[in-house]
């Protein structure tokens, strides 16, 4: 198998090297990729959409269909991971372990028994390992700023590098950081599983709904010019605002899909303490 693999890789690589001879030179301004459509995007974007970040405008406006279905792919991946892994365990757990956070005593609760009323108990699993205080504290301090930055990246995607995908990934990573630095239960307390599922569907719905709204208002699907009367702006600014709306939808979908995939993967679908 190794030899077959090596032969295939070397042969394909040789063909690609041969083909690379016909490719345009590195950083050639007159290369075919940079001559047909992209000059139009670069020169007309500010006129047509008043968005300085050309990547954002092309992503959400000119190539809106592509991005909508990419978002759908991400959503489907989240659903696929959920369907593959999630095991619905029995509602009444036989024996649960709790750790008293102040004294470090572990309490075993048998089926049907109640925990002594106290806020200091933390649900743990049999393979519990102590978390580092420095990591916990630093992450707790950093996460709000990471989330603030994620919101900035989504909202400021028109004028600076950013947009829904990037901001959504940053926001999702902040919750995943919480799950890694503490444990998965802490993260699930903040973002429940149902919330993940509902919000990543809502993100896709915001995108598709914006498109459908344009359709209802008499223009093509995802033609944001149709939103001008609703938003009380001219048709150019309507495209800019339409881009912002779908970017928010993308951001919500990406953020919660990332959290959903992570919490399913890290716990093998059991939603225990995770990694």
């Amino acid at each position: 198998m190794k030899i077959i693999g090596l032969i295939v890789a070397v042969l394909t690589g040789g063909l690609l090297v041969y083909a690379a001879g016909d490719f345009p030179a590195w950083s050639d301004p007159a290369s075919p990729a940079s001559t047909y459509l992209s000059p139009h995007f670069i020169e007309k974007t500010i006129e047509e959409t008043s968005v300085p970040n050309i990547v954002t405008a092309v992503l959400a406006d000119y190539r809106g269909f592509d991005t909508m279905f990419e978002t759908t792919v991400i959503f489907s991946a989240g659903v696929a991971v959920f369907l593959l892994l999630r095991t619905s365990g029995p509602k009444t757990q036989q024996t649960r372990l709790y750790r008293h956070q102040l004294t470090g005593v572990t309490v075993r609760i048998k089926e049907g028994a109640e925990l002594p009323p106290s806020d200091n108990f933390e649900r743990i699993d049999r393979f519990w390992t102590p978390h580092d205080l420095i990591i916990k504290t630093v992450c707790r301090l950093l996460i709000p700023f990471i989330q603030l930055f994620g919101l900035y990246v989504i909202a400021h995607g028109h004028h600076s590098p950013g947009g829904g995908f990037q901001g959504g990934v940053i926001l999702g990573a902040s919750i995943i950081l919480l799950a890694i630095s503490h444990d998965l239960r802490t993260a699930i307390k903040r973002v429940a599983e149902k919330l993940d599922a509902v919000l990543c569907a809502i993100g896709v719905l915001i995108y598709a709904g914006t498109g459908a709204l344009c359709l209802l208002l008499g223009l093509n699907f995802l033609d944001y010019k149709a939103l001008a009367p609703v938003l009380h702006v001219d048709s150019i600014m309507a495209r800019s605002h339409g881009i912002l709306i779908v970017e928010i939808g993308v951001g919500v979908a990406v953020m919660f899909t990332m959290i959903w995939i992570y919490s399913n993967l890290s716990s093998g679908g059991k939603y225990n303490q995770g990694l």
Partner: protein
Amino acid sequence: MADIVSTVVDNYNYWIYITLMMIGLYAIIAKNNLVKKIVGMNIFQTAIILFYVSIGVKRGATIPILEHAHGSHGYGVVHAAEYVNPLPHVLMLTAIVVGVATLGVALALAIKVYNEYNTLEEDEILAQIREE
């Protein structure tokens, strides 16, 4: 001779992408462990991303965000040569996030395989399937 050398050196982006892509392809075909195959798949994907982004580069151009364009409608003429090609960036932007999502699905499948066969080595899994 100097011509060939300069062509080879000038187009180093293609050689890097081909090398990375073939490393990924080899890993997908030859590696026995499923997680290593997934890593190979990701290296392959990264090679394609590198290829696309390197195609968009233009000499002397800046990032595709128009300068001094905040809140102005009467923006002057924009020259396409001043900004790099935004299209590869758009395509790869979505490809990166979709790549992460598909990586999640691949890992979920690997977890299911591990739960079923208690191993991630391909030959051991095949041996177990033949026994059944």
